[in-house]
């Protein structure tokens, strides 16, 4: 297997060879073809079969060289969720068709999983797919779909066998977002913005060739997707005061007239918690680097959500009158969440989403309790009954 030094040499050669390229897309395609996109992917699919741990150094070197970026913020769902699933379950043709334009950013992906009636209980979903020759006809409604309004493709889980127990009657597809019958509507949220969408699927025809995994095996495929979502969250390196605590700490330092004794101890408590969360993430990164992926990822997401909420609540209390004043409620379509540029009220409201999106804190606590602590599961009333007979 490739060593870190050999890999570094290859990156250096690539950078030198493409030094004078003006064509960003061409550069990214070439980088993919050289196996330097995601080095742990197979040769021919943007990788070199190298250890995953070598990727950060590669990215850092390209960044340092000022190389064109594939804008990972914009194509996060493709990179983090669609790609590993296509890699794991896709046919040769599917991998070759989808992975390259996914990685280069030519094609944006979104995720059609959650439904109004199936959020935490994703396996209850009811979007129907009925086979019709070489195609499937899909009807239903999905929700909380970020980037749907810009996406070319979607990963989609459907119900194909309502008469089976819920975990056994699902099938997983890749859905063409430009296909007739796909309607995307913005979903406005408490902040006034719409990061997300509702997606209505009405008689959408999907070729069987766009199925991922076996018919009826959609739950397993979806779990692969979601496992990769969990890994993607919460592991980022941060300096001390790097998160939201830094904003309020700076306000505290710069505006002594706002300080009160009661808020002081609360600020210090949150400062300590933020530092604890930071050290925990640092420890998690060491574990991942040492190849011991622990369940601390869920812990990090739980802690991050609570911290953001508590800190932004404190910030409003500190600002008092200024906290009563907001910047704007305009309906916008932001491409990503930025906690630093908007008003404190925005931070406060947006942080409420942190314990709902990507798995509610309640669900994550269940995951920790059952999978980590090994506490017994609740009595299940929905495991063996046919999906169609479940109360909803």
């Amino acid at each position: 297997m490739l060593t870190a030094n050999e890999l570094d040499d290859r990156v250096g050669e690539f950078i030198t060879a493409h030094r004078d390229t003006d064509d960003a897309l061409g550069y990214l395609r070439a980088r993919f073809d050289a196996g330097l996109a995601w080095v742990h992917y197979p040769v021919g699919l943007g990788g070199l079969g190298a250890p995953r741990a070598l990727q950060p150094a590669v990215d850092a070197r390209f960044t340092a060289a000022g190389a064109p970026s594939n804008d990972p913020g914009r194509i996060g769902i493709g990179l983090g969720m669609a790609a590993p699933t296509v890699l794991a379950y896709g046919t040769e043709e599917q991998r070759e068709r989808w992975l390259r334009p996914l990685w280069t950013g030519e094609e944006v992906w979104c995720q059609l999983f959650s439904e109004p009636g199936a959020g935490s209980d994703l396996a209850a979903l009811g979007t129907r797919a009925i086979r019709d020759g070489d195609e499937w006809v899909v009807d239903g409604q999905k929700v909380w779909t970020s980037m749907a309004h810009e996406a070319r493709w979607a990963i989609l889980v459907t119900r194909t066998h309502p008469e089976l127990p819920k975990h056994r009657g699902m099938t997983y597809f890749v859905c063409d977002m430009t296909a007739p019958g796909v309607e995307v509507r913005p979903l406005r949220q408490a902040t006034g913005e719409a990061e997300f969408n509702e997606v209505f699927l009405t008689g959408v025809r999907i070729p069987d060739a766009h199925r991922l995994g076996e018919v009826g095996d959609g739950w397993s495929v979806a779990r692969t997707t979601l496992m990769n979502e969990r890994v993607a969250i919460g592991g980022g390196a941060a300096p001390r005061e790097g998160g939201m605590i830094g904003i309020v700490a700076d306000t505290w330092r710069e505006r002594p007239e706002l300080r009160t004794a009661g808020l002081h101890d609360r600020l210090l408590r949150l400062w300590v918690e933020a530092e604890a969360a930071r050290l925990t993430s640092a420890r998690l990164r060491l574990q991942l680097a040492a190849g011991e992926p622990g369940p601390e990822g869920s812990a990090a997401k739980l802690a991050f959500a609570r911290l953001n909420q508590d800190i932004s609540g404190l910030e409003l209390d500190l600002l008092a009158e200024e906290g009563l004043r907001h910047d704007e409620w305009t309906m916008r379509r932001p491409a990503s969440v930025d906690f630093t540029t908007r008003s404190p009220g925005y931070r406060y409201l947006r942080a409420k989403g942190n314990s709902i999106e990507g798995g509610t804190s309640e669900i994550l606590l269940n995951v920790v309790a059952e999978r980590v602590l090994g506490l017994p599961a609740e009595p299940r009333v929905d495991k063996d009954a046919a999906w169609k007979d479940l109360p909803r």
Partner: protein
Amino acid sequence: MSATEHLLYTEDESELRSGIRDLLTERVTLAALLARIETNEPYDPKLWRVLTEQIGAAGLAVDETHGGSGASWRETAVVMEELGRSVAPTPFLGSAVLATAALRAVHAGALLADLAGGRRSASLAVSFASVPGARLRYPVRADGDTLTGTVTSVVDAGAADVLVVAAEAAGGPVLYAVEADQPGVERRPVVSLDLTRPLTDIVFTGAIGTALARGEQAEAACATALTTGAALLASEQLGIAEYCLESTVAYMKTRHQFGRPVGSFQGPKHRLAALWVSIAQVRAVARYAAACVAADDPDTAVAVAVAQAHCSEIAVRAAEECVQLHGGIGFTWEHHPHLYLKRAKADALAFGTPDRHRAILARLVDLPA
């Protein structure tokens, strides 16, 4: 009779509540509310008319000789509860509580009667974040009866006919009634965190006021108004918390996940039960604060500090649970939780945050830092 004897609701209060709730249920639907709050007219004028002219809600704490019903702040607090429950945009707090309390204190009979009858509305020109019990600031200066200065973040001032303004004059503070619709008064709408309660910055540039009281009396009127506002805000917070709990419970009874109503899971169940315990305390604390201001009880300052320290935190917690336990839809613009969250958080900032009230309490009950 001690204020602790007035913690229950009288039959009259229950009747009053029921009338107001019927009205609000009809007029303040979620759809109507959402349609209204982003317009230039967040208040529903018809609602305000019925509330003041038919129900007489604005005159509850005004005596009968001034066109009120001669009830008290306790009955007014019941109105606040219901307005909180519905997050109804009305100028009730500014006009029927803050301005009315100030005008009562200076015996401004005619104007008081106008407010009590709903013929006019008013607001007290102070920042909504002013802390009762803290030293009053006077951002407006009076030269003769000509006023100059800027007051920021005034509640319910956008639609007010009259502004009650405490200004610093050469001989000390003076309380004025200022017609809002005159050249020397500019009202600048503020984008407020709580869309259902608009705030306004008011710039006085040579506005003409009518002096109502001077010196200590003016100062005391302002202090009383803030104390009354803070006391009654606790009742609004009670209404907010109650509705957040009730609507969450209702949702969790019908929402199914994993083949069960989500309200059958013990995690959220215990949280909601604990919230109910806290809300039972909010009710007692808010009733006590209202009873104290109604009776001008010597314990009023403590009662209000306790109420604002306690009720703010529980109302915010209730709204936060309402958002969280509604899951995804709790975070959407189309559902009610965000409106309650914004109101609850804004109310917590209004009239002083809990920590500021605890600091005041420390002095009142001899627990020095």
